[in-house]
């Protein structure tokens, strides 16, 4: 019984409670992928697409599990669906755009363990979103993820040319940047209500 407006769900998932900068989900590829802007964009789009498909599938699975009254199978079925979705998307991309496939490389299978996608499925179930709300939520989350990845990549590209102290190089400075980005995104609080 969630009466949030669709626009509010989208803005919330994309900006206010950005999956990366507010919930800390999807950081693993964030740290690994985000040093090149072009990679970041591709990864973001791939993740958004998987999120959309996964959202629809998990909505269906949830209905099924409720029908057969087997709530304990929720996690296993979600993770199986997500893994299969990634596999399918990988085959799809390989067939229709080999260039994109080679560009994404190792990152595609990495999406399987991407906390953001499972997090999406779990949040949408816990909050009781209906079908349309789930899809809007997935769009918002994907958009927010891509946005965060792009911002991060842009900053890191500049950082590579800057004089960062030896000890800070790598994950430490990335986390600092992420922290500042997270603070700036807090400014969106209250938008859309």
């Amino acid at each position, binding site marked *: *019984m969630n009466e*949030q407006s669709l626009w509010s769900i989208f803005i*919330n998932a994309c900006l206010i409670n950005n999956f990366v900068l507010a919930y800390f989900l999807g950081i693993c590829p964030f740290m690994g992928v985000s040093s090149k802007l072009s990679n970041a964009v591709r990864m973001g789009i791939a993740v958004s697409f998987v999120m959309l498909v996964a959202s629809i599938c998990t909505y269906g699975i949830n209905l099924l599990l409720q029908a057969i009254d087997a709530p304990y*199978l929720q996690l296993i079925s979600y993770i199986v669906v997500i893994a299969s979705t990634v596999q399918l998307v990988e085959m799809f991309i390989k067939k229709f755009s080999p260039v994109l496939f080679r560009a994404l490389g190792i990152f595609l299978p990495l999406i399987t363990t991407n906390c953001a996608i499972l997090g999406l499925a779990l949040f949408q179930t816990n909050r009781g979103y209906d079908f349309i709300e789930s899809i809007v939520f997935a769009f918002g989350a994907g958009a927010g993820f891509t946005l965060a990845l792009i911002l991060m990549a842009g900053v890191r590209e500049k950082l590579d040319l800057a004089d960062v102290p030896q000890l800070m190089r790598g994950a430490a400075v990335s986390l600092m940047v992420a922290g500042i980005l997270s603070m700036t995104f807090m400014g969106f*609080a209250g938008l859309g209500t």
Partner: protein
Amino acid sequence: MNASGDSSDKSLYSRMYRAFVGVAAICGIVIIVVYQITAPIIADNQNRALETAIYKVLPEVASKKEFYLNTAGSFVTEKLQSNHVIYATYDLNQQLVGFAIPAQGMGYQDNIQLLYGYDPTKQAVVGMQIIQSRETPGLGSRIEDDPKFVENFLRLDVRLNETMNSLANAIVLVKPGKKTKAWEIDSISGATISSKAVGNIIQQSASFWLPKITQHYKEFEFGS
């Protein structure tokens, strides 16, 4: 290298199959065992948490009954597979005391779940208890225990309009200390969004349930 290539392929498939089925069986057993052991304990915990909350939001509760909203729009006591459930509470003389209504909605950080008590004779919310919130500790989490905020819900006017199909006055959030009308809520300074969320949650829930409760009032008598 493979003289018996065909049979080793077949044996690979059978090994894969065997491994998968075997692992699935072990996992299945683990889950079922843990579930069976913990399910009654969890149900017990949830029941106790619910009862504690109900006692906090309504006075003089001696017993309660669950009511589900069926597709025909009337209230039934048998368990339905739905989220639309409310609790009618009765005192020692089996007179209806009020209703404990669970509601949820989006707060600042995540979903907020709460329970509020509705007294039909006073046409007001007489208590509110946060069941689950993951708001920022020290800020948004003050919706749970800030005394001034909780006071708002001891007599929050939710009377219905003339046609009995929605609230006469929408619940409105005002700055701390500026409350003048019975349907206003003093927000918590520094936790505006969380306070507003609570107001919205109750507003939407009351708009949904109260007209239906008033319509089907007879169905809640203890004997029926």
